[in-house]
């Protein structure tokens, strides 16, 4: 009897060992901003990654597991991000790099992904040029050109003059250039522009400049989060809304989770963007429901969450197609073909030429729905938008 138990234990033990040996773990290194003043941004992405993994285990081949190793870059901090990416590649031997909340951080890590042949999935950073920095980069988020160019084209039909106020870093310059092109090509006139330092507590002087130029509309871009709230408050405090000056921009300036902080002054602000948490597509409804179930009724995912969610879906797709045996070049070939019809933001795909995201852009207005401020989608201004900057400049 005793002997039988021993044998059984041994056999079982051997089986467990065998199972572990065949179980394969794919490591994904995720570099996000999880501390400091912008911690909310990374947290929204991290939560999406964790939620995706929890709900989609069945999308992996049998015996394959995904392990995400998360690192905190603390904000727009290229040196730190590069160091973290290097550690993830060299020490943790990750097979994917992911995350990248900020443009400078993605840019500094790009050469590493080329050198080590580690595919890098950009889940947020939105400056157009990033994807040209390495053949191993693919982007599942957005570019500023994608939203700001259609915004300019649309605005030219409504307004004669516009003032531009953008943050003085990569995405801000992109937004400025893209809006200017769309707006002036459509016959609008830019009556003034200002670049605002990235670390800036008070937006009043800049908005006063804009007010003194008395434009029909102000096109603004600052990083989503508390800066967007601050510029919105400055807009309200100076009474620009009452003076009839419209505030327009890419969706970064009215992210869903910041709307309660902005308050009623954000009512009527018009943005063009690829994602709103208020969209009533079925895929978005089930995404929101799953999110609220996991993180509470008061938590709302942002466009950054969706970039991370779809980024994980792309990674899972590449793993699935290769049956868990990852080859970097094969992975890139697959990612170039990636398509999804179940993204919360509508149909998306990766442009095989540029490895950048292709998606719809929606015109939205901040409205009060059931006592809550929401980005209500009014119309689809353009479907399947490729990054216009790459088309205009013929970049791949």
């Amino acid at each position: 009897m005793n002997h039988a138990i021993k044998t059984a234990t041994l056999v079982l033990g051997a089986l467990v060992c065998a199972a572990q040996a065949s179980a394969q773990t794919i490591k994904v290194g995720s570099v996000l901003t999880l501390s400091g003043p912008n911690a909310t941004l990374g947290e929204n992405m991290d939560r999406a990654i964790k939620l995706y993994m929890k709900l989609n285990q069945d999308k992996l081949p049998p015996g394959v597991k995904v392990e995400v190793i998360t690192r905190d870059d603390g904000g727009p901090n290229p040196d730190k991000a590069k160091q973290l990416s290097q550690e993830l590649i060299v020490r943790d031997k990750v097979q994917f790099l992911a995350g990248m909340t900020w443009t400078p951080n993605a840019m500094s890590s790009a050469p590493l992904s080329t050198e080590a042949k580690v595919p890098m999935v950009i889940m947020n950073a939105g400056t157009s040029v990033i994807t040209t920095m390495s053949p191993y980069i693919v982007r599942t988020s957005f570019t500023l050109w994608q939203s700001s160019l259609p915004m300019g084209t649309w605005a030219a039909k409504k307004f004669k003059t516009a003032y531009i106020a953008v943050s003085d870093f990569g995405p801000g310059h992109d937004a400025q250039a893209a809006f200017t092109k769309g707006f002036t090509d459509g016959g609008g006139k830019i009556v003034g522009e200002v670049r605002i330092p990235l670390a800036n507590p008070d937006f009043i002087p800049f908005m006063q400049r804009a007010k003194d130029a008395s434009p029909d509309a102000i096109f603004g871009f600052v990083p989503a989060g508390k800066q967007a709230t601050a510029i919105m408050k400055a807009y309200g405090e100076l009474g620009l809304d009452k003076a009839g000056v419209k505030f327009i921009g890419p969706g970064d300036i009215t992210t869903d989770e910041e709307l309660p902080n902005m308050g009623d002054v954000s009512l009527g602000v018009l943005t063009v963007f690829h994602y709103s948490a208020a969209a009533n597509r079925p895929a978005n409804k089930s995404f929101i429901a799953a999110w609220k179930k996991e993180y509470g009724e008061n938590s709302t995912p942002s466009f950054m969450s969706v970039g991370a969610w779809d980024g994980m879906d792309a990674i899972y797709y590449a793993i699935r197609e290769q049956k868990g045996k990852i080859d970097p070049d094969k992975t890139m070939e697959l990612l170039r073909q990636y398509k999804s019809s179940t993204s919360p933001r509508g149909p998306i795909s990766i442009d095989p030429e540029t490895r950048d995201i292709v998606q719809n852009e929606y015109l939205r207005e901040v409205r009060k729905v059931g006592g809550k401020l929401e980005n209500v989608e009014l119309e689809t201004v353009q479907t399947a938008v490729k990054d216009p900057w790459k088309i205009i400049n013929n970049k791949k």
Partner: protein
Amino acid sequence: MQSVLASVVSVAFHGAALGMILYVISVGLSVTMGLMGFANLAHGVFAMAGGYVLTTAISRFGAPFPLALVVAFVLVGAASIVLERLLYSRLYTASDLEQVLFTIGLIFIAVAVARFIYGTLQQPVVLPDYLKGQFSLLGRDFPTYRVFIIAFSAVMVGLLWFGVERTRWGAMVRAAVDNRAMAQSVGIDTKRLFSLTFALGSGLAGLGGGLGAEIIAIQPTYPFENLVYFLVVVAVGGLGSLRGPFVAALLIGVADTACKYWAPQFGAFPIYVATIAILLWRPAGLFGRHA
């Protein structure tokens, strides 16, 4: 000409308002560091606490704005007495380095606690209707909230100056800071005096945090992010002076706004250039007592 005049008025007003916001959040430090001589880098912790008390009182308990300000002042002041008795009082005679290390540690703890309780998002501030909108004067609009802050700060600096320069309490504080042993030997209860003065400084920090919350967002990293502003205001104004920080805040606010309005391409750095220039010219600050 008309438009130049108009923009000068705008810059002067917005500069004064920014200066007063800086003053309001730094005035507590001019008491604890300026008067009591304690290198209290954790000043922002009390200001942040005041902001959280204010937003919680308004959103959770529906308190009106003025009452919430009073609650922020009283609660933060009271809580600081506990901290002062338990921790700060042990370090009054310690070196600057020890005080700095201790208070930096306190910031780290406070940041973690705030994040644990409130999360990383900034707290929404609901201003009462009478502070929203614009205030018309001579055909120009000024944001009411900023007009209120300027008036409030002017009253506060007047009261503080009167308290320290003209009352018995003020005389006792100045005596105790200059020579604690002598003050004690003439019968001043310096222990109690320091506790109360520290509570006043912290309470003012809490009040400032609450009052400025609409512009300087309340979130867990507040004490670190704004530390530089507190220190600039107190250092440029001069330690041991109460008028100093007021004038310094005003100067910095106007200079910063003017640069951003007329020369935005220089970004955020004129404020630091001005600080360095003033400190090179007068190392003890504008109104510093000790060279």
